[in-house]
C-alpha cells in the first residue's frame, strides 16, 4: 500500500522522484486524488511555507518542494478533469511592460502552482492590453504583476486602470510584487494585495480568495 507519510516527506524535502513514485502507487491502488492532495501534499507545502516564514527554510527549498508537488500533481491532473474544486483558483501572472525581469515572477508562479493554483504565466514586458485579454479569456480570479524597477512599477497602475476600463476590476483581485514595491505603494495604486516573497504571495492569494 502506498505510504502517504512518505509522500508528505518527499514533498516537504523537495524530492521529486519519490513524490512521483508514491503518487503513482496510490493512483494504481485507486486512492482518491483529492485525498492524496489534501491529505499529504498540501500539508507538506504548508509546512515548508511555515518553515520559510520562520526563517528555517530558504527559497531553493520552497522551490524544490513546489517542484516535487507539481510533478506529483501532473499525475493526478487527468483524474481531476472537470472537477472545478480541484483548483484553488486561477491566476494570470506577468512582468509589466518595459521590465524584463523574470525570476521573481517565476518563483511566485511556481509556488502558486505547487500549492494548487492554476497559473497562466504570460511572460515579461507585458502591455496592459495583454494583461486585460488574459484575464478576460481565462476568467482569472487573481492577476499578479511584477516589476523590479522604479521606472517600470508605475505601469502597474496603468494595468489596473485598463482593467477598470474593460469592466473587469471587480471580477479579479490584483496582487503586486517586486523589489521596489511595498504595501503602501500597492494600496496607493489600488491593488488588493502585496507580497515580498513567493511564500507570502501564496498566503495572500489564498486570503484574497477566502481559501486560507
Amino acid at each position: 500500500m502506498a505510504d502517504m507519510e512518505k509522500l508528505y516527506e518527499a514533498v516537504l524535502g523537495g524530492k521529486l522522484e519519490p513524490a512521483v513514485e508514491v503518487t503513482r502507487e496510490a493512483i494504481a491502488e485507486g486512492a482518491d486524488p483529492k485525498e492524496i492532495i489534501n491529505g499529504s501534499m498540501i500539508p507538506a507545502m504548508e509546512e515548508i511555507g511555515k518553515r520559510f516564514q520562520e526563517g528555517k527554510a530558504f527559497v531553493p527549498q520552497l522551490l524544490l518542494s513546489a517542484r516535487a508537488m507539481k510533478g506529483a500533481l501532473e499525475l493526478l491532473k487527468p483524474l481531476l478533469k472537470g472537477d472545478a474544486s480541484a483548483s484553488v483558483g486561477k491566476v494570470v501572472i506577468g512582468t509589466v511592460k518595459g521590465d524584463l525581469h523574470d525570476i521573481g515572477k517565476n518563483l511566485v508562479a511556481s509556488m502558486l502552482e505547487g500549492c494548487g493554483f492554476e497559473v497562466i504565466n504570460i511572460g515579461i514586458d507585458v502591455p496592459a492590453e495583454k494583461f486585460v485579454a488574459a484575464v478576460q479569456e481565462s476568467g482569472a480570479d487573481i492577476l499578479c504583476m511584477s516589476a523590479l524597477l522604479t521606472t517600470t512599477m508605475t505601469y502597474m497602475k496603468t494595468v489596473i486602470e485598463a482593467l477598470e476600463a474593460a469592466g473587469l476590476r471587480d471580477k479579479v483581485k490584483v496582487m503586486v510584487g517586486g523589489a521596489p514595491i511595498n504595501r503602501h505603494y500597492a494600496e496607493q495604486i489600488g491593488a488588493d494585495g502585496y507580497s515580498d516573497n513567493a511564500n507570502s504571495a501564496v498566503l495572500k492569494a489564498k486570503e484574497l480568495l477566502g481559501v486560507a
Partner: protein
Amino acid sequence: MEDRQTTETQVAALALSELTLPESEIYLTLGYGGTEPQADVRKIIDDVLEEAALRCRPQIAYAFFDGTKTGPASVRIGGSDFQCGRIIGSYLDGAQRFVLFVTTAGAEYDAYLHGLKASGDIVTEYVADAVGSVIAEAAVTEVRRRVEERAAAEGLTVTNPYSPGYCGWHVREQRKLFSLLPEGVCGVTLNDSCLMSPVKSVSGMLAMGRTVVKKPYACDICGMTTCYKRRQRT
C-alpha cells in the same frame, strides 16, 4: 577644472576563472543569510558553476574622468551632471577623479538563463539567476581591483562602487553614464526603462582621491529599508 575623460575606455573580455566568486556571496544571493544550503542545493550550485565556466564570457569596461562634487547630492563627471543623492554624495568628499564602468556576465549567460526557463526547471533557473548576479558583481570587483592598482600608484584611494538605482541614485541616470562610454560597450544596451540587457550587468561609478574611503558594506550607508539587497542580508 575642465571635466574630461582622461583615458581611453578600457575594455576586457575575461574568463570566468579570472573572477573570484565567493560561495558565501552565492549563498547570500540565494537568500541563505549566513547559513549553508543543504547538499542537494549545493549540488545544483556546483552544476550551474560548471555550466557557467563553459558558457559565460564576462566583460568589463571602464574609463577615468576628471570630476567635481558640485553639491551634497550631485557630482559632475566628464561634463555631465549626476544627481547621485545625498547618501552617495556624502562619500565623495575629497574625490579627485572618477571611473565610470559597465560589467556583464554576457549575452551567452543570458542565453543560458533563457534556456533554463524554457526547460521549466525553476530551481536551477533560480540558482543560475543568483550565480549570474554574483558574476556581474565579481566583475565589478575586478574593475575596482584594476582601478585600485592604478590609484595606488598615484597615491590615491578608491571608494566603493556606486550604481544608479541604489542608495538614492535614480536608475534613469544610467542614460548619462552610458552616454559617456562608447555605444554598445561590452554589448550592453539600455531599454526605455533603463534596464540593461544582458540582464546580468552592472553599471556604476568609483571615485578616487586622497581622502576617500571604501566602506565595509554599502547597505551600511543606505537608508532604504525595503531594498531587496538589504532583505537578502537580514
